[in-house]
């Protein structure tokens, strides 16, 4: 659950971008950071390997200001998508309030998406969290690649494979270009705040 300090009037929300390796999680955060740097006045922390892959996690914190007397702080993380970092992925999920699952639309990655979603479910279960209950948004990334003739999965197929049981909001997006990147983020923040409000009632 979100960190709430009633005395200091502070609400801290943790959002994690999850998904298969090279799916565009870091690109989402980089786009937000680059595009809104002037407005959110923050720095992004990224620890990368030699091959430009996420080693530990990326971290983008920002404040959205005071609402109903509370300072709302959003902390966005990505997890490393590579094989050997499951322990890190699990660690990053500790205390998570909302998840954006960044699925890769490339046809050749369909198996990876499914495996990654199952992996998310398992890792959440380790913290007694249920994937069916936690605020979750699906993002079908890399839709722009069809321009280059790269075979993509139809969105209907991705919905069927990934979202037929979850039935959560989903966005077609291109993190590289910026399509639906902010919308995805806004949606997950709103869902987390909604869930927080319900829990506090």
């Amino acid at each position: 659950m979100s960190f709430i300090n009633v005395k200091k009037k502070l609400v801290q929300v943790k959002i994690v971008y999850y998904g298969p390796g090279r799916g565009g999680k870091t690109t989402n955060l980089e786009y937000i950071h680059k595009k809104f740097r002037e407005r959110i006045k923050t720095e992004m922390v990224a620890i990368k390997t030699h091959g430009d892959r996420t080693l530990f996690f990326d971290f983008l914190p920002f404040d959205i200001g005071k609402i109903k007397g509370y300072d709302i702080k959003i902390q966005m993380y990505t997890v490393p998508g590579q094989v050997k970092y499951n322990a890190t992925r699990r660690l990053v999920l500790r205390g998570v309030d909302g998840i954006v699952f960044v699925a890769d639309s490339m046809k050749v990655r369909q198996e990876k998406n499914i495996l990654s979603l199952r992996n998310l479910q398992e890792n959440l279960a380790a913290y007694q969290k249920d994937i069916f209950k936690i605020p979750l948004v699906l993002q079908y990334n890399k839709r722009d690649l069809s321009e280059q003739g790269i075979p993509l999965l139809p969105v209907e197929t991705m919905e069927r494979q990934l979202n037929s049981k979850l039935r959560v909001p989903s966005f077609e997006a291109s993190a590289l270009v910026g399509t639906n990147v902010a919308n995805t983020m806004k949606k997950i923040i709103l869902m987390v705040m909604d869930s927080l409000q319900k829990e506090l009632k």
Partner: protein
Amino acid sequence: MVKDSEGTLVGEVESRLEDLFGGGDEVPGAGGNEGESGEFFVREGVGVYAGDEKGDFPSGEPDDSPEFIEDADFLDDSKTLRYLESVVLSIDWEISDETMGELIAEAERLKGIYGHDKTLVILFQLLGSVGKYLKSNKGGAHPDSISLLNSIYATLEKVILSKGMTDAERKRELFVQVNKFKQLKEEIRLTKGGAGKRRKVSSPGIPEPLTREVVKEAVIEEESRKAIREAASSDVGHMLPHEAFAFALEEIKEVIKAEFKALRAELKLWRDGQ
């Protein structure tokens, strides 16, 4: 959800987010995988799923799942390789006993199907060996082992699906993979080398245990050398000069290695006799 929350915490957050991030998303330009309306889809789900029939999750199966290929025509090479491809792709995400077991079994099965083709048999053997190494070492495996696995798979696909490939070209592809395999083996040996060398010094004369895996690797190496030698003798006329040179170099290296091995054995015998 949000529209109903006007005046609530969520409503205020929404308006704040609009101030901060409004107009931030790029409108999809010309091209892109757009919907019929020309816009990227945004699907509103029902929020948090509250049903009780969750069943198998995620519910979808990839189109290349084993269930799907059961009906496949096994004479069609691209279909024969589909399951192997999906297993290889899934390994990039998670190395589990289950996945690696599937890979090893599939490599073995395909080795049987393509038993008449020496080049393919060796490639499947290489794939199986790297699979076994990954299965036993998992996260601690050498980082290049997964790229080698992908590279062997890509070569298999190329060799099987490129119908017009000459024998020389096929052997050349095999040669590249065998060299990569040997290089990785050497790197792994060097990584473990320090401790191994110290152990040898402290206990001279004790023969290194020849494990089943070492024997198998030796067999693969021997078979691949044989295949390369065969290729060199039968296809040398079709080779480019630098390829012929590379094959010749490989042969010379093998001769020198064999000579050194024999010398070492002689020395060992001599030492033991002292």
